[in-house]
């Protein structure tokens, strides 16, 4: 793998044509493979160190599959995920799983469900210390010391180390999960809906914690979420996914102030605002596309008000626009005039 060094800083992560297809089998005894579900299809993006990239989409958009394929929690079907590991570009998709173990401390995940992501039969201390034990990074009093420091850092009391997860509330459990992910000093964190299961008042605490930790430790986040207001708050750039593909990727301000893809626009208008003076104004009809049964052209075409014949026949490519922005829409040129009236 030859990655040329340029003047610009090297991305921490380069995702190139990442695909994850799940086979579909016929019914019956022989179970022949009759097709694939393209859970995530041809995903491309770069991630700079210290950046937070939001991965946004509705159910079935493939955002979780993409996140897990990047960390190789599931093996991708095709594509490259190039991690810049101590100035060594390493393709995570090709690497043998034994070598993968060495890279694990470098990239971690925070899960959505604070109830199922912690082993109910292990104490907090065992959960937080486990990464260090697996990688033989610390022993004895040093281990206990690091666990205590980490627990303090995420806002847990070290004296609660001998308790089991069920003794904690949802927000505190999520802090335990964060402590487990951060104790090895990773560079890359994939937050898979890390705050969606939490109550509003606790959600704000966890968002603040994630932001503080990012500043303090220089973390890079991939923040998978369906809640756009949270994404706007925490992300530098946002990739919007629909039916397994990225349909628009741009800086957070561009996405939220001037969405170019009709789906992004619809998604933004669908968020109910807590201000009663800002009525919801979403005109999108129809159902979220089923990745197992996609139309031949643009997956969004059946719901799109601007569709043309071309949209129904040909899948649009992700095209570069000014400001490092990419949009996958045939109607991309002159879209602003036709979509946003006045």
């Amino acid at each position, binding site marked *: 793998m030859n990655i040329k060094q340029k003047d610009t800083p090297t991305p921490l992560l380069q995702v190139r044509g990442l695909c994850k297809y799940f086979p579909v089998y016929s019914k019956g005894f022989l179970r022949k493979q009759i097709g694939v579900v393209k859970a995530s299809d041809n995903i491309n993006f770069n991630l700079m160190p210290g950046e937070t990239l939001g991965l946004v989409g509705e159910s079935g958009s493939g955002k979780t599959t993409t996140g897990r394929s990047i960390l190789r929690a599931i093996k991708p079907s095709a594509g490259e995920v190039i991690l810049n590991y101590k100035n060594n570009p390493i393709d995570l998709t090709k690497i043998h799983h034994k070598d993968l173990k060495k890279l694990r401390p470098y990239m971690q995940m925070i899960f959505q469900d604070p109830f199922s992501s912690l082993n109910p039969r292990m104490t907090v201390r065992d959960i937080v210390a486990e990464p260090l034990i697996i990688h033989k990074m610390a022993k004895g009093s040093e281990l206990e010391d690091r666990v205590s420091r980490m627990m303090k850092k995420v806002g847990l009391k070290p004296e609660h180390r001998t308790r089991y997860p069920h003794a904690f509330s949802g927000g505190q459990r999520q802090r335990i999960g964060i402590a487990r992910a951060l104790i090895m000093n990773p560079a890359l964190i994939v937050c898979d809906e890390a705050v969606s299961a939490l*109550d*509003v008042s606790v959600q704000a605490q966890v968002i*603040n914690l994630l932001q503080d930790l990012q500043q303090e430790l220089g973390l890079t986040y991939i923040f998978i979420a369906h809640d756009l*207001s949270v994404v706007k*708050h925490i992300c530098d750039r946002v990739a919007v996914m629909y039916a397994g593909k990225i349909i628009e990727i741009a800086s957070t301000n561009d996405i939220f102030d001037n969405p170019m893809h009709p789906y992004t626009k619809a998604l933004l208008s*669908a968020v109910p*605002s*807590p201000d009663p003076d800002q009525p919801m104004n*979403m005109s*999108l009809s129809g159902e979220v596309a089923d990745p197992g049964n996609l139309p031949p052209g643009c997956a969004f075409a059946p719901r799109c008000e601007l569709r043309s014949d071309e949209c129904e026949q040909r899948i649009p490519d992700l095209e570069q626009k000014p400001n490092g922005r990419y949009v996958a829409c045939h109607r991309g040129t002159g879209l602003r005039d036709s979509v946003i009236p006045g």
Partner: protein
Amino acid sequence: MLEKNKNILDIKKLKVSFFTEEGEIRAVNDVNFSIPKGKVMALVGESGCGKSVTSYSILRLIQKPGKIMDGEITFHPSEGKSFDVLKLGEKSDMLYNLRGGKISMIFQEPMTALSPVHTVGNQICEAILNHQSMTKAEARGKAADMLAKVGIPGAKGRLDQYPFEMSGGMRQRVVIAMAIVCNPELLIADEPTTALDVTIQAQILKLMKELQQEMDMSVLLITHNLGVVAQVADEVAVMYLGRIVERSDVYTIMKNPRHPYTMGLLQSLPSLSMDKTKLPSIKGSVPSLTDIPEGCPFHPRCPYYKPEICDTGTPPDLVSVADNHDAACVRVKEIQNESSAKEEACV
């Protein structure tokens, strides 16, 4: 003379407890509120605040180990006399006719609210035939009309489908169709859009609002999503640890909250119109219902906490702070002065 009441439902001093191994859990503690006729009333709160339990009590759906300890839930139907739902016999016809008839309910998870082994058409027909005298063919026709009304394309053909053949949004539409098929006067919607995607949520909320206006229904909306509340509700009651802490119309609650909990909730919402700054948050987490703090239940998390005023005695009652605006906070006046002083200081 028929007495005309402007409320469809009055809840007074409702108390519901659950009896578990850890002792008595007071899930709903002294809750009072009214649902105005033809309006959408929202009950907001975080998990464990008792909002669902309150709504279940209205239909007497509380099951063991739960028990309604005390209170009155007076239902004022448009025809006939008002009556206390809690005084009806467990097996009485009145209660039977009430459930799914005059008052019906939509649940959070559309998959579990529908029976997986019956077709959608049969389930709607059953709801019709339970409460109205009709032939099966008429009921089927009405069911098809209902599906069309909730925006399901090709309604006739959908009647013979099973719930698993439909998407989440479609299923929720079916659930709504089932709930409104008998022209209920009060619709209780328990987190009706929480399990749905945002674009589908927007569609369903729009549908519910349209149906509510068209059929002149009253709606009790249970949700934790303040955005949904702002978009759909007319009146709002905020619950915390089994009590209502603030109640008013939606504008007042969202624009001018007076209880520190409501203020904290609204501030901790990341919003689309906000910049990337540190979110103000409420400290701590919601205490367990087995361990409700003494005095004002919110005092350990309250930024305006004053010792010996907030943490002793009985929990504060709802008191009127303005026209149609109640808050349960003893320091409500001082807090307003303090916060306005703070704002001035910031400017």
